[in-house]
């Protein structure tokens, strides 16, 4: 039964992700939010491919294992670029696109090099360990970058409601995973609860993004004073 619930949540996640891509195509947002749409499209395809490989080879198969972790690494890189796409949107008016590109590539190379250094002394299956390590490291880089972006949104008085919604959703998403990890370590006996949290979170991010694309108009604005408490 828990497996069924999780499969339904996965299906819902895939539908939401696909709907965002379709809505973006229909309304002409694809180019403006290209990295996000590419990430969501890739994520949907990977999800279906995972279930296909699972049905063909089984959960304990090497095929599924390798496909899962390798595709996860690629998706993490995709999520990283989606986040940097949001950076480009927020810093658009500062004409800092060139520096942002350099920053993005440098950080990615730095993370890759650090991951390489970490797994260098590993024994067999070095490349697979490297793939998992870089996914893990990029998760933390993404977490830090999201909080920095949120700080920039407040500092620059960003008022575009959709951009704020996208950034905040990503921040909550990253933070909730970390919170779930911490709580799971604190209360391991509640494993039946923690089992459901990741798929629910995985569903909430596309749901929040879908709301941003479906319901929030491109020109919608929100007052910065409602986002930040300014000390007087």
């Amino acid at each position: 039964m828990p497996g069924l619930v999780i499969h339904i949540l996965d299906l819902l996640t895939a539908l939401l992700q696909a709907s965002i891509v379709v809505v973006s195509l229909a309304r002409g947002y694809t180019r403006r939010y290209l990295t996000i749409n590419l990430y969501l499209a890739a994520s949907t395809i990977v999800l279906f491919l995972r279930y296909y490989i699972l049905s063909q080879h089984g959960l304990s198969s090497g095929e599924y294992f390798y496909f899962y972790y390798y595709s996860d690494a690629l998706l993490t890189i995709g999520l990283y670029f989606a986040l940097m796409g949001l950076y480009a949107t927020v810093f658009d008016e500062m004409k800092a696109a060139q520096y942002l590109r350099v920053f993005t590539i440098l950080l990615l190379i730095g993370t890759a090099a650090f991951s390489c250094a970490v797994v260098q002394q590993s024994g067999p299956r070095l490349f697979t360990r490297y793939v998992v390590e870089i996914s893990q490291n990029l998760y933390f880089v993404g977490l830090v970058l999201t909080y920095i972006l949120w700080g920039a949104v407040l500092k620059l008085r960003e008022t575009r409601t959709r951009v704020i919604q996208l950034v905040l959703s990503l921040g909550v998403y990253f933070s909730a995973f970390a919170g779930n990890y911490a709580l799971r370590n604190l209360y391991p006996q509640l494993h039946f609860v923690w089992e459901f949290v990741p798929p629910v979170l995985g569903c909430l991010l596309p749901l929040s993004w879908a709301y941003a694309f479906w319901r929030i108009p491109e020109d919608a604005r929100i007052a910065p004073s409602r986002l930040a408490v300014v000390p007087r």
Partner: protein
Amino acid sequence: MSRKLTVVFLATLVLVGAMSLKTVVVTHGDGSIVMANSGGPVPPSPWKNSGGPVPPSPWKNSGGPVPPSPWK
């Protein structure tokens, strides 16, 4: 300091911060893999040596039955 050097410095700073955070979290964690991506049944951490039922990775967006670790 030129702008390009500033960019290099900021990238290094973010990397150091992120890796420090990772070190703190993973040191106090249970050895699970930290990731944040889309669904599908989750394989266990490939470096864990446990033989019993494996909890799902907390950073994945999905669950399902977990295959055994091929690293044992």
